[in-house]
C-alpha cells in the first residue's frame, strides 16, 4: 500500500521552512542550500529576500513555498528591509530572528552598500548569500562573484576573450573588515558543516554572515545530478575554501585531506569548457592561473590537512549505517 504522502510530509522529523512545489530548476544548488539553512535556523525566524532566483522560484503568485514570515525586497535593499524588521521586532519585544537572503548579484554587487550598513549598525541579523557566481535568474550575466575565466553571456569565451577577465571578489575579506562576530563560507556538499555554521550564527546576538557555494546546473552547465560533486570538488581543490571568521580573524577552516587539481573541478562544467580546447595556449595559461589561485587560497588559509581529521574534506562526508552522515 502506498503511504499517505501528505500525512508523512507533516510528520517529517525536521523543520521544513521551504516547501516542495517551488519552481527551481532540476538539481538547483540554491534551492538545496536555502532548504538546509531554513532547517538549521527555523522555525522562529522571518526572512527578507532580495530579488533573484530564490525569490522568483519560491513565490510564483499566488503561491508561496515559505513556511515562515517572508518579505520580498528590491534587488538592492534586502539588508535595509531586514534592518527594519529587526527594529520592529525589538520594538515589539520579540526574539524572532531576522534572516536576510540574497544571491551573489544582490550581495557582491547591487545590495553591497546596504549590507555594509546593516553590518555596521550591528543589527541582529543572519545574512545568507547563496553564491551561484552569476546573475542566473536574468540569464547568466557575470557578477563580481563570477570566478576568473568562467564564461557567461556577458563574459563570453571566444577569439577575443577567455571568459571573465577579472577575479572573483574576495567578499569574506571585506566582511572581515566590519569586525562582525561571525562570518563563514559553507557548501552544499557539506550539509552538516553548513547547518552547524547556521546554528552557531543563530546563537549570536548581532550581525552574522554566511556565504554558501550553490552550484547552478543551468549557468555552470553541468549535469543536474552532479551538483554535489561539483560543489565538493570546488572545496577539495581550494577554489572555494570553507573558513570561519570571528571578529574578522580566521577562527577555523575545513582542512583538505586529499587535494584535487583544479581541472577536476573545472572539467565538470561547460562554463570552463574553453579551458580544455586542444591546441589553444591561452587555455593552458588560464588553467594554470586558476590552479595558482587555488594554491594561493590553500596557502593563505592554511587548508592543507596535517593528519586525517573527522572534520576535514574527507572525514566530514563519511556516512555510517543509520545516519551520522552528510
Amino acid at each position, binding site marked *: 500500500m502506498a503511504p499517505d504522502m501528505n500525512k508523512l510530509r507533516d510528520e517529517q522529523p525536521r523543520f521544513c521552512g521551504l516547501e516542495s512545489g517551488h519552481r527551481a530548476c532540476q538539481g538547483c544548488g540554491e534551492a538545496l542550500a536555502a532548504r538546509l539553512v531554513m532547517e538549521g535556523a527555523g522555525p522562529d525566524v522571518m526572512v527578507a529576500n532580495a530579488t533573484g532566483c530564490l525569490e522568483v522560484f519560491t513565490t510564483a503568485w499566488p503561491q508561496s513555498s515559505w513556511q515562515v514570515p517572508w518579505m520580498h525586497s528590491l534587488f538592492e535593499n534586502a539588508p535595509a528591509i531586514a534592518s527594519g524588521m529587526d527594529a520592529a521586532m525589538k520594538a515589539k519585544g520579540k526574539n524572532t530572528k531576522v534572516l536576510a537572503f540574497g544571491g551573489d548579484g544582490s550581495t557582491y554587487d547591487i545590495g553591497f552598500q546596504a549590507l555594509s550598513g546593516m553590518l555596521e549598525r550591528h543589527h541582529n541579523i543572519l545574512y545568507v548569500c547563496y553564491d551561484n557566481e552569476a546573475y542566473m535568474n536574468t540569464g547568466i550575466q557575470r557578477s563580481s562573484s563570477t570566478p576568473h575565466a568562467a564564461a557567461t553571456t556577458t563574459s563570453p569565451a571566444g577569439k577575443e576573450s577567455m571568459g571573465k577577465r577579472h577575479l572573483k571578489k574576495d567578499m569574506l575579506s571585506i566582511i572581515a573588515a566590519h569586525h562582525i562576530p561571525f562570518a563563514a563560507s559553507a557548501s552544499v556538499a557539506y550539509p552538516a558543516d553548513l547547518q552547524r555554521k547556521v546554528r552557531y550564527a543563530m546563537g549570536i546576538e548581532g550581525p552574522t554572515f554566511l556565504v554558501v557555494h550553490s552550484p547552478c546546473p543551468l549557468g555552470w552547465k553541468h549535469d543536474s545530478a552532479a551538483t554535489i*560533486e561539483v560543489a565538493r570538488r570546488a572545496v577539495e581543490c581550494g577554489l572555494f575554501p570553507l573558513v570561519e571568521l570571528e571578529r574578522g580573524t580566521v577562527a577555523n577552516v575545513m582542512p583538505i585531506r586529499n587535494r584535487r587539481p583544479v581541472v577536476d573541478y573545472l572539467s565538470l562544467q561547460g562554463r570552463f569548457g574553453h579551458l580544455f580546447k586542444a591546441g589553444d595556449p591561452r587555455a593552458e595559461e588560464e588553467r594554470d592561473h586558476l590552479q595558482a589561485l587555488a594554491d594561493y587560497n590553500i596557502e593563505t588559509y592554511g587548508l592543507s590537512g596535517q593528519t586525517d581529521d573527522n572534520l576535514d574534506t574527507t572525514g566530514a562526508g563519511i556516512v555510517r549505517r*543509520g545516519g551520522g552522515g*552528510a
Partner: protein
Amino acid sequence: MTQLTRGAFALPGTSLDFKTGNWRSTGKPVHVHAAAPCHSACPAGEDQQAWLAYMQQGQAEAAWRELVAANPLPAITGRVCPHPCETACNRSTTDGALAIHNIERWLGDEAIKHNWAYPVAAPADDAPEVAIIGAGPGGLSAAYHCLRNGLKPVIFEASPEAGGLLRSAIPATRLPRDVLDAEVSRLLALEGLTLHSSKRLGRDVYLDQLQKQYAAVILSPGCQAAWDWDVRGAVPGDLHEGLHLLKEFMDHGAFPEAKNVVVHGGGNTAIDICRLLKRSGAMRVTLVTASGLPGPDTDPADLINVVPRELTEALEEGIEIIDHATINRLILRGSQTTGVEIASLRKIRGVDGRKRRVTFEGTERIIEADMVVPCIGEKVDPEGLESLMNGRAYLAPTDDAGHLANAHTYALGDARGDRGTVAGAIGDGLKAVAAIAVDLAAVQSAAQEIRPELPAEKLNPVYFEVSSRTLAPTLPVAERDFETEIEGDIGRTAAMAEAARCMSCGNCLACDNCWTLCPDNAVLKTQAVTADGSHYVFDLDYCKGCGICAAECPSGFIQMAAED
C-alpha cells in the same frame, strides 16, 4: 486554490498545490535492492551483506542467525572456504576486499562458545522423512534445511563419525578437530535429526529400499574413488594417490618415508599434501601443476584452484611450485621411482573451442624424486549407486537443485561432478531441500527473486573512509606442526571493525543522504521500514528527476529509471 487579490499575501506552503513532478523528463529515482557481489558469488547462498549489516549494528547473534539461514557451518567455512565472496567484493577496487572469512569464522566460534540456538523448530511427528546419504558438508546442510522446511531428515553415513571430507581430507592446521566436532555436534543435536553412522550404501542400506521407504532421497556421497593415474602407461609400484595418502595420514599420523617428493595436481588437496609432507621431514617437495600462479596477467580460468592464503603459506614453508608444467615421463628403477621428467605445458583453446593441453618440445628437464603423488581429483564410488551411474564418473543431475531421473531423488555436492568446494555442497543442500519442499507440498515454487548485481561504479566511494583490510595473525613457519591452527582468530574488535568496512552494496544504509540532499524536499523519511527495506519514499508529485539522490547514494541503492 485560494483566490487572492493583487498586493495581498500568499499563504505559507501553498506551492504544494503545484506538482513539479510533471517536470521530469529523464527518469525517476527508484530503490533497487540489487544483490551485493559477495552474495552472488557465494556457492552456499549466503547474503554476506545482510549479515554484515547486523554486525554494523553491533548485533553479533542476529548476524549469525542471518548467516545460518543459508549456511549452518560458518566456523568451518570461515576456515576452509576459498571465499569467492572476497574475490567479488566491490571494495577490492579501492582499498582491499573485506576479510569476510575472518568475520564468518569469528561468528561461528562465538555461536559455539555461547551455544546460540539455530533458528529451527522440531518437525511435526507426521512430517515427511527424507533419507540423506553421507554426513559430509552437503548432507549436513541438507539435513539442517530439512528441519528449516518442516521435514524429518535421516542421515546414513558410512564412517563412524559425521564430517565427510572435512574430517578425512582437511588437515587440523586448517580446521582444528575441536572446532569441527563442536559445530557438527551442535547441528546433529538438533531435535528431529537422526544420524545412522557406520551404515554404508550398497552394504547396509540400499537405494531402492530407501526410495520406497522415504518421501525423498538425497545423495551426497562425495567423491571417494581416485581417478586412475599413469604416465604413458607407467605406474610406480608403490603409488600413493593423494586423497588416500591424506586419509592414511589422518588415521595414522605418518607418511611413507621419502626425501624428494613430486606432487602432481593443482587443488587444495595437492597443497595440503605438499605442506604435510614437508613438515613431516621430506627434504624437497615440488608441486607440478598445469595451472598458473596468481599474477597481474593471470587469466582467472587458468589460475591454480587453491585458497589464496594457503598458497602464500605453502610458499613461505618452502614448497616449490612448477606451474604450467606436467609430468612427461617417470624414471623408474625396477618399479621404484627415482625421478620424473617435467615439461612445460599450456592449456590452449583449439579450433573447436575446447581447451587442450600442449606440451612444448625442448622444455623437458629431469628432477630427482623417490615418491610421486598424483592429486588429480576423485570420482564417485559407484557402490550402491550402480543403477544411477551407468558407468559414468559422477551422478550428473539435470538441474541446479540436483534432480535425478528417479522421482524424489537428488544429488548434491562433489558427487554432482560440477562442484568442488565445501560451500558449494552446503548451497546444494539448501537448493535440493527447497526443491523437495516444493515437490512434496505439490505447490508451485515461489517466484524466484531475481536481483541484478551491483557493480562497483554504482557506489559513491566518497562517503566511505579509506581503511585497510584486517590481517589475521598467522603462525610463524618455524612453529607450524600437524595440530596447531595456522591462521588465528581476529577477535571481536577487529571483526566489528572489519564489518564496518562493508559498503552495503545495493542496500539502504539509512544514512539520510537522499533525504538531506534533495533540493525539492521530495524524499520523505519514514519511521517504519518500507516495503523495499529502507526508511525513505520518493514523493514523485514533486521530484523533478535531477538525479542528485542517485549520484550521492553511497551504496547504489538509488538508481535512475525510465518513467513507467
